[in-house]
């Protein structure tokens, strides 16, 4: 019998089809008023096997909750063995996570509004990464993004009275960060980005991928490698700001399409259009490394062109 980490568990859940996942979540969180949201599966078969090697052989999966916590069990076809991951967390923490979180957040907001400024850091602590990434998505510069993130938090504090709960607190914070960052970009004349990046005209044209290489599987620890991290950062930085903004909020931060649109002040259709372009460009930008040349140390990469 083996045990899994929570991260592996989520990876595994992502391998299920919609119906199985819904059934599993229902089963696990039976009776909970606010079952947690489990994001749609994103990873292709290759990626799944990379992240969680046993998932390809899982034929059935089930879960149960008890006073001890909740567990997920699955049957491994090849090993003919039952695997259990437990306990992920206690039942009391599982049952109403979103309600508990909302209450805490709302209570914190009220207290900060009432003058307890020392609680403000506790309120915004979970959103540091989201706010920093949002600022980075506009500026593509770490130092500037950190400075803007700090400014955004200060502005959020002074405007806290204006937060009406019409969107999530995190979305509200990111809206402020994006606006601050855009102002900074406009102010900074040295910036490389000109007004063409804000235009919509060129978005009606189709994007033609420039490389059709079939990527090899990437070992699960590859993302820890400096080269890969740097290549990802470089590729993200190479996107035009309007594409980078949606890509970072949607794909890096995991905002959904609506939240991304709200945070950036765009309509959802435009978010989708830009997301498509951003994703295809990211893939093209990264293809030369993913044919295995990074791992093999062979720099002689040749593009695969079909036409």
């Amino acid at each position, binding site marked *: 019998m083996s045990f899994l980490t929570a991260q592996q568990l989520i990876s595994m859940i992502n391998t299920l089809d*919609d119906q199985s996942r819904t059934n599993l979540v229902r089963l696990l969180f039976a009776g909970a008023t606010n079952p947690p949201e489990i994001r*749609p599966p*994103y*990873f*292709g078969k*290759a*990626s799944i096997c990379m*992240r969680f090697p046993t998932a390809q052989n899982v034929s059935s999966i089930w879960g149960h909750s008890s006073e001890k916590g909740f567990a997920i069990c699955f049957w491994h076809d090849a090993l003919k063995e039952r695997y259990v991951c437990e306990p992920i967390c206690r039942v009391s923490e599982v049952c109403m996570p979103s309600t508990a979180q909302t209450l805490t957040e709302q209570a914190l907001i009220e207290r900060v509004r009432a*003058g307890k*400024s020392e609680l*403000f*850091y506790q309120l915004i*602590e979970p959103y*540091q*990464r989201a706010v*920093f*990434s949002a600022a*980075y998505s506009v500026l593509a510069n*770490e130092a500037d993004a*950190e400075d803007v*993130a*700090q400014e955004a*938090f*200060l502005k959020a*504090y*002074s405007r806290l009275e204006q937060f009406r709960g019409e969107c999530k607190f995190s979305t509200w914070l990111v809206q402020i960060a994006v606006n601050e960052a855009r102002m900074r970009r406009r102010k900074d004349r040295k910036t490389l980005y000109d007004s063409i990046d804000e235009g919509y005209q060129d978005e009606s044209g*189709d*994007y*033609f*991928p420039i490389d*059709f*290489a*079939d*990527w090899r599987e*990437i070992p699960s620890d590859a*993302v*820890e490698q400096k080269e*890969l*991290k740097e290549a*990802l*950062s470089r590729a*993200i930085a190479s996107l035009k700001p309007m594409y980078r903004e949606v*890509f*970072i909020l949607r*794909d*890096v931060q*995991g905002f959904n*399409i609506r939240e991304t649109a709200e945070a950036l002040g765009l309509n959802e259709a435009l978010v*989708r259009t830009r*997301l*498509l372009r951003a*994703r*295809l460009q*990211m*893939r093209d930008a*990264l*293809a030369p490394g*993913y044919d295995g040349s990074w791992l093999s140390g062979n720099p002689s990469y040749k593009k*695969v062109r*079909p036409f």
Partner: protein
Amino acid sequence: MTVVEISCVHVWREISNYIEGDLDPVLRDRMAAHFKTCAHCSAILDGTRNVIGLVADGKTFDLPRGFSERLRQRLAQSLPNLRKR
């Protein structure tokens, strides 16, 4: 059931929505059939999903070292003054 064929260009236009699971079933089926027979589009689909999987990992975008500490210091310095205004 007959699935009507779809062009590569059309597939690229919708590939992001396909990954989002955000297409009507007819188009989704057409694309799924296309991926089975077109190695290029299939490679693009896998690669694009791979990109999303990698950046969503959470390890790509670390906060700069010392970010939280500097933020705390900035808040400690600035918040009392903001309240006085």
